């Protein structure tokens, strides 16, 4: 598996579980292919998307896709579960306050990366812990790095305004 992808997974305490022979890197983007897709992709190598998109390298860092985050939910050790209000604010692009965290697992130390889950156990994105979770009692503790609202923001910035933080 490509080093940068492996390092990214390692940040969440997720084991390297993707079959490296089925991962293809193309123009800085990573894809996980089934054997059937791999056959077609080799025959016609000018495809622009194949199989499961895993993410891309942006500014020398790995920027994951949502399918990849969903794939590592079961494997990742670092995760926090947040309440409904915090979940909604998070997908509106906001950071997480200490009061919104219901449960935390794995590393809870400043500088660690953690998946952010809602009460259904669904991954909403990930963030960087900015205050040790066992010490902080209030204020922003997780900085939003990437959230589901990105789908609306990238497709249609005007439509993304429908993700209104005041809904709660």
């Amino acid at each position: 598996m490509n080093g940068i992808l492996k390092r990214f997974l390692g940040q969440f305490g997720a084991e390297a579980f993707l079959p490296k022979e089925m991962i293809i890197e193309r123009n800085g983007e990573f894809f996980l292919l089934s054997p059937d897709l791999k056959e077609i992709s080799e025959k016609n190598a000018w495809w622009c998307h194949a199989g499961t998109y895993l993410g891309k390298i942006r500014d020398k860092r790995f920027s994951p896709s949502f399918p990849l985050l969903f794939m590592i939910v079961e494997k990742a050790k670092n995760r926090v579960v947040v309440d409904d209000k915090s979940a909604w604010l998070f997908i509106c692009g906001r950071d997480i306050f200490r009061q919104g965290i219901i449960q935390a697992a794995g590393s809870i130390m400043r500088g660690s990366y953690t998946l952010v889950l809602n009460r259904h156990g669904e991954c909403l994105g990930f963030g960087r812990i900015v205050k040790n979770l066992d010490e902080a009692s209030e204020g922003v503790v997780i900085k939003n790095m990437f959230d589901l609202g990105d789908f609306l923001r990238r497709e249609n910035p005007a439509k993304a305004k429908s993700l209104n933080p005041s809904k709660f």
Partner: protein
Amino acid sequence: MSQMDFFLSRYREMGWKYIEPAVKQAIRVNIMNVDENALLRRLEEHGFKLQKIPFLKSGYWVAEARFSIGATVEYLLGYYSIQEAAAQIPASIFTDLKNKKVLDACAAPGGKTVQLANLMEGTGVIVALDVRQNRIKALRNQLERCRVSNVIVYQLDARKASKLGVKFDRILLDVPCSGNFAADKEWFSRRTMQDILRNSRIQRDMLAEAARILKDEGEIVYSTCSLEPEENEFNIDWAVKNLNLEVVDVDTYGERANTEIFGKKLSSAIANCRRIWPAETQGFFVCKLKKRRM
């Protein structure tokens, strides 16, 4: 005669009397990602009232909404797609899609591609084509959001699909068309017969290319959201007479297509096509073609 009168007189001649359409917003549950009943409960908790669409398997009309159905966490999680009811029909009329090699020839923005992937339960392969870069971006976003894993995308004109050197079991030809007035308020002032005839020629080229790369006994589903017979019945009549294809009867919504239009007698098999006049859904035309064994 105004453009509107001109087109409405054509529809009248085909047996339809104008009524103001009231097209309802619809969603389709992505059953690969979520339990349908669990999703319905969650959407109801958000205040949405949904109504099962009787002629679709996992389709619902949005009867009541307090905010946009596209602004829920469930939508962003890929649990459902916003897809007009008639547009959900084409993918649903293929037989036996599992483990097949499927071509989605004009795929973007990807609603039907995701539907195909669901019907295939993630098995087999979908080759998705679109000719325009910006539309491929929308297609890729849709595939990512809905976590579809069996699709490969090429930027390619459907009229050149044989360049891939692949033979397909199933081909979805949801071709570019002139659209209809139910989906576009300015339609009557925007469209001319020249547009329709130009689109018809492009559609025939796509049908011919699809027939070339379809396996024997393979299926093509052809659909448009146009009401014009030049893009629908006349094209299928031409395909049946020239491309070794037959029209297969399908059990779906819509009325049987006419076999005589504007004084032109068509193959009797055209009655197996379905024409949907705008009402609760937009206007639509759909049929299933099968390649005869050589």
